[in-house]
């Protein structure tokens, strides 16, 4: 395979020339090598221009060589594997990779939206707030236009074909970063017997050692790296995770990490997840996260061809790519010259060096002279020139008192180094503020008070690989307890004070945040408009709020704030970093918890019986419940109307196993029930049940259900399906914390018992046939009577109670016997034409009867609101008995349970509809109530609903309106009693 198209590929580097890789960018077929990133392969092919900017649609190129990249964002993949906003500088190249530039239309070179650049005076700081937030509601109108014009890449709407998983890792020492500090820290800890997890976001270990010239212990960086990695691979105590980013650092030393298992292959292996979210819990954490190089702020500093000097060194030494033919260095410190020397060693002579310092140290003059590179001491870059790519620079002498004279320099590449910024994102996430060190003109880590973690190497300010390696070793010794005192952060002796950052006079845009298109003048304007704190400036200008969280821009913003406000930089303050350090896929966060596995699915013990009976199921909370049992050609509506009618005219059976069930035992059980329910329990005899209502301490209804007295000291409580967990927790709280003197024990038996309700005029007959020999007469089992017996080895509990208003019985057995009970009842029901009904018919029956359920027990209703005020005992105290009488809870105009009938009986209502007076005035605001539960009533042959309506009981007989779709749907309804059928309850006693 030839490399003829890779016109800027040079010799050396770490790419694998034996493994050529073909990829596509904007449809063009290009070649690179294994070991390339997408960015290095694009540069090898002479492609700098990779995107358009967020707001102004200015052409943008590759700026960095790692995760700090603000510009080179691409759409990766296609169809259902399309990922937007992928950093080309961090994306490993693979065979068949497809990427597209984003945020341009119709093409990258000719972008119509670049017209935004001409109107840029309208797009300055705070423009979102000023222009579009007024009048109220305008934002909704403007937003979609803005999103199209100013935006990032587009995602896909197709389902994700890949899988993701969560795993948990444990380690004595977790080391984040595998540069010189990370490698030596990991080795030191492992050799002391600690279990070490070494986490590296790159696909290669080594960090800066992969490209930076330098020496450690007399060895060249590259050699030291090779040898150290060999030792690490031979060290069983070290587990290495590459392609893994520690994106979040949380309390108790937990690191959130994402491992990109298969983001470097075209077709993922379906048996392996695409990404793993790793929850790493470590005794101690070493943050060897390195430092980002800082750029200068000057005119047109966003042109393609302008990049960080460390990036240039990485492209040359690691990826064997020449960033440009004619390169100029712009710097104000030592490391710029180190890069110049490193490039010279590779035979790359810079066209010029511009140094903003005055004076420039003599050794740098010597270097430049010997290398034959023109040096411009005490000069600044005023602005860059070019269209789609850098063509030249305008530079000026700084501050010699003379009229500045523009000097033109021709070049195609500018590499810049304005200093370093330790990567303190993870530490900052723990709420530890970075501290400004004037001698370094840099922010260093804050103090870790609890000794749980430490920053090492360049993250602690150390400038050379050797310093970093030594510091990493010391930090590891300290954290494993081998050294008493914490190693110091970098503090240079007798370093000259850093030169102030140049502020060139230029009418061109000087970008601070390349990803969000925020300029120096935006920051200055923010300050003029009264914003002072960096946190406010950040939100007002959006600097640092893009996906890169301002990795290359934040420090320049703080610098500008200090200059403009004429304040010491240490007093300016900082912003706070938040997880994730680099963007995270939603898939990784969700892991396996998607679709049907979002929550556990609970099945009734009768589930197989329902399947055999042909039920259609519906999800209710965690439960899968039979929804209806379709007859031939029936949909849910036809089926539930038929099923409900069959119950009222004959007999039906429904699964009620999802109800919460609590076994209550102990000599104080009656006293306990008396305290938790609003009604009295002291007089309930053995063999009877009672409906109970419980309140919260604040006086609102918490839950309802029946409780059966099975023995002297033995009760069986049922709760609502959704309230089961909260009721159990509440009752245990009362017994364990508030009333430990009560001798009562609770056991959750929701899963131990399965039950059905047999309802309808012929229900007693079904029981008689199913349990021959058991007396089920009214005398033996009166209303709310309980029977407990053993039927041929089958344990049975029956209570005569009704949710539908018909004569009905709940029949329970041990869950393991559920199938037997089902068979027994269906067999016994045959002569009486026993039918099955599902949750939809159950709902219709209870709405007809006016029984409250979840939609009415919404946590905001009192017993009186629900028409159950009369249940509340006045002779005893119980949970909520005092606060239920608060002024606001006893007002007459509260929303009360009411029935609604649409005037046109064939007009369905919808739950959630708002209710308004029937006065013909255009509905506005929140109305006088809302519809809670709706159904078609098979009994009344019309639509009906329950509602919570202000003064609902007073309004019976009046006409009001139900409103939906923001007023587009208005239905006239008549208020009535919520007890639509049999208000006297005669059927119960049939």
């Amino acid at each position, binding site marked *: 395979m030839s490399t003829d198209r890779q016109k800027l590929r040079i010799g050396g580097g770490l790419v694998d020339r034996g493994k050529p890789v073909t990829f596509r960018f904007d449809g063009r077929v290009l070649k690179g090598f294994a070991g390339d990133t997408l960015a290095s392969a694009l540069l090898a092919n002479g492609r700098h221009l990779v995107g358009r900017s967020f707001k102004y649609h200015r052409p943008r190129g590759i700026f960095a060589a790692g995760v700090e990249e603000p510009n080179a964002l691409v759409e990766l993949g296609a169809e259902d594997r399309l990922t937007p906003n992928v950093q080309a500088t961090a994306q490993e190249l693979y065979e068949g990779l497809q990427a597209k530039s984003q945020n341009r239309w119709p093409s990258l070179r000719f972008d119509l939206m670049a017209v935004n650049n001409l109107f840029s005076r309208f797009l300055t700081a705070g423009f979102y707030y000023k222009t579009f937030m007024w009048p109220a509601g305008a934002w909704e109108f403007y937003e979609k236009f803005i999103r199209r014009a100013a935006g990032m890449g587009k995602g896909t709407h197709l389902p994700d074909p890949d899988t993701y998983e969560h795993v948990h890792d444990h380690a004595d020492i977790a080391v984040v970063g595998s540069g010189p500090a990370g490698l030596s820290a990991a080795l030191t800890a492992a050799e002391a017997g600690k279990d070490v997890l070494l986490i590296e976001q790159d696909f290669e270990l080594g960090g800066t050692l992969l490209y930076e010239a330098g020496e450690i212990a007399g060895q060249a960086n590259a050699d030291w790296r090779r040898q150290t990695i060999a030792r690490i691979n031979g060290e069983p105590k070290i587990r290495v995770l590459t392609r893994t980013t520690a994106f979040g650092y949380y309390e*108790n030393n*937990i690191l959130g990490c994402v491992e990109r298992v298969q983001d470097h292959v075209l077709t993922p292996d379906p048996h392996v997840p695409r990404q793993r979210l790793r*929850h790493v819990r470590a005794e101690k954490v070493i943050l060897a996260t390195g430092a980002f190089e800082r750029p200068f702020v000057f005119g047109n500093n966003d042109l393609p061809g302008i990049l960080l000097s460390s990036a240039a060194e990485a492209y040359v030494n690691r990826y064997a790519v020449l960033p440009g033919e004619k390169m100029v260095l712009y710097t104000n410190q030592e490391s710029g010259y180190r890069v110049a020397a490193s490039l010279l060693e590779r035979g790359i002579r810079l066209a010029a060096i511009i140094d903003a310092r005055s004076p420039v140290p003599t050794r740098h003059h010597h270097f430049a002279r010997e290398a034959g590179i023109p040096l411009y001491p005490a000069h600044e870059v005023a602005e860059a020139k070019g269209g789609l790519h850098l063509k030249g620079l305008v530079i000026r002498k700084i501050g010699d008192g003379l009229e500045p004279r523009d000097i033109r320099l021709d070049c195609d590449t500018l590499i810049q180094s304005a200093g370093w910024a330790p990567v303190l994102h993870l530490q900052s996430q723990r709420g530890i503020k970075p501290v400004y060190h004037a001698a370094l003109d840099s922010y260093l880590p804050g103090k870790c008070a609890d000794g749980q973690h430490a920053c090492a190497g360049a993250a602690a300010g150390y400038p050379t690989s050797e310093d970093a390696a030594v510091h990493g070793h010391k930090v590891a010794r300290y954290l494993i307890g081998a050294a008493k005192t914490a190693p110091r952060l970098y503090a240079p002796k007798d370093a000259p004070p850093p030169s102030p950052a140049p502020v060139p006079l230029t009418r061109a845009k000087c970008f601070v945040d390349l990803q969000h298109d925020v300029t120096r003048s935006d920051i200055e304007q923010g300050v003029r408009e009264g914003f002072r704190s960096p946190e406010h400036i950040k939100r007002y200008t959006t600097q640092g709020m893009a996906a890169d969280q301002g990795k290359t821009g934040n420090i320049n913003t703080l610098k500008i704030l200090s200059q403009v406000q004429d304040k010491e930089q240490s007093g300016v303050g900082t912003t706070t970093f938040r997880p994730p350090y680099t963007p995270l896929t939603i898939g990784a966060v969700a892991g396996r918890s998607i679709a049907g596995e979002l929550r556990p699915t609970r099945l009734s013990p009768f589930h197989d019986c329902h399947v055999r009976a042909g039920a259609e199921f519906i999800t209710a909370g965690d439960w899968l419940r039979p929804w209806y049992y379709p007859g031939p050609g029936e949909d849910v509506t036809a089926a539930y109307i038929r099923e409900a009618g069959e119950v009222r005219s004959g007999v039906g059976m429904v699964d009620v196993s999802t109800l919460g069930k609590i076994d209550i035992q102990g000599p104080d059980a009656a006293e306990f029930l008396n305290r938790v329910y609003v009604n009295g329990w002291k007089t309930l005899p053995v063999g009877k049940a009672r409906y109970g209502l419980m309140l919260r301490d604040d006086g609102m209804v918490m839950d309802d259900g029946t409780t059966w007295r099975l023995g002297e000291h033995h009760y069986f409580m049922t709760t609502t399906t959704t309230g089961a967990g909260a009721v159990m927790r509440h009752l245990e*709280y009362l017994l*364990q*914390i508030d009333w*430990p003197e009560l001798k009562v024990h609770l056991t959750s038996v929701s899963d131990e018992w399965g039950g059905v309700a047999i309802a309808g005029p012929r229900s007693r007959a079904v029981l008689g046939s199913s349990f021959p020999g058991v007396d089920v007469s009214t005398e033996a089992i009166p209303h709310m009577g309980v029977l407990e017996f053993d039927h041929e080895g089958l344990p049975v509990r029956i209570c005569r109670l009704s949710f539908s208003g018909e004569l009905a019985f709940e029949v329970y057995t041990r869950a393991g016997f559920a199938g037997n009970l089902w068979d027994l009842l269906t067999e016994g029901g045959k002569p009486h034409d026993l039918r099955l009904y599902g949750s939809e018919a159950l709902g219709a029956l209870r709405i007809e009867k006016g029984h409250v359920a979840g939609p009415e027990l919404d946590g905001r209703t009192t017993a009186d609101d629900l028409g159950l005020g009369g249940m509340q005992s006045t002779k005893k105290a119980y949970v909520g008995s005092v606060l239920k009488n608060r002024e606001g809870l006893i007002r007459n105009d509260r929303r009360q349970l009411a029935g609604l009938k649409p005037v046109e009986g064939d007009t369905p209502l919808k739950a959630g509809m708002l209710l308004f007076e029937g006065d013909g005035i255009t509905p506005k605001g929140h109305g006088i109530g809302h519809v809670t539960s709706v159904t078609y009533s098979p009994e009344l042959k019309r639509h009906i609903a329950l509602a919570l309506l202000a003064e609902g009981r007073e309004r019976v007989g009046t006409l009001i309106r139900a409103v939906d779709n923001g007023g587009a749907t208005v239905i006239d309804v008549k208020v009535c009693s919520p007890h639509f059928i049999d208000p006297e309850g005669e059927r119960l006693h049939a």
Partner: protein
Amino acid sequence: MLRIDCPFCGLRDETEFTYGGDASRTRPPLDETRAEVWNDYVYQRPNPKGLHSEYWFHQHGCRSWLKITRDMVSHEITAVAYAKDTGE
């Protein structure tokens, strides 16, 4: 994520527990009828920057209510006991 050393079950992950609020409050006697007293009990909460006494329910474990001392700044848990043993 917290780990709570349940006296019955041992060291367990926070996901097994449900938070139960401030443990410095005491339920008024059942026959207390003054609304202000109940109002204080139900609504008034301290919000210390430092040690906080709180209840946690071992929902997916032994079902014990635990009384825990947690630092609201560092989340460090310095004491765990059965709520039962600590009540008067």
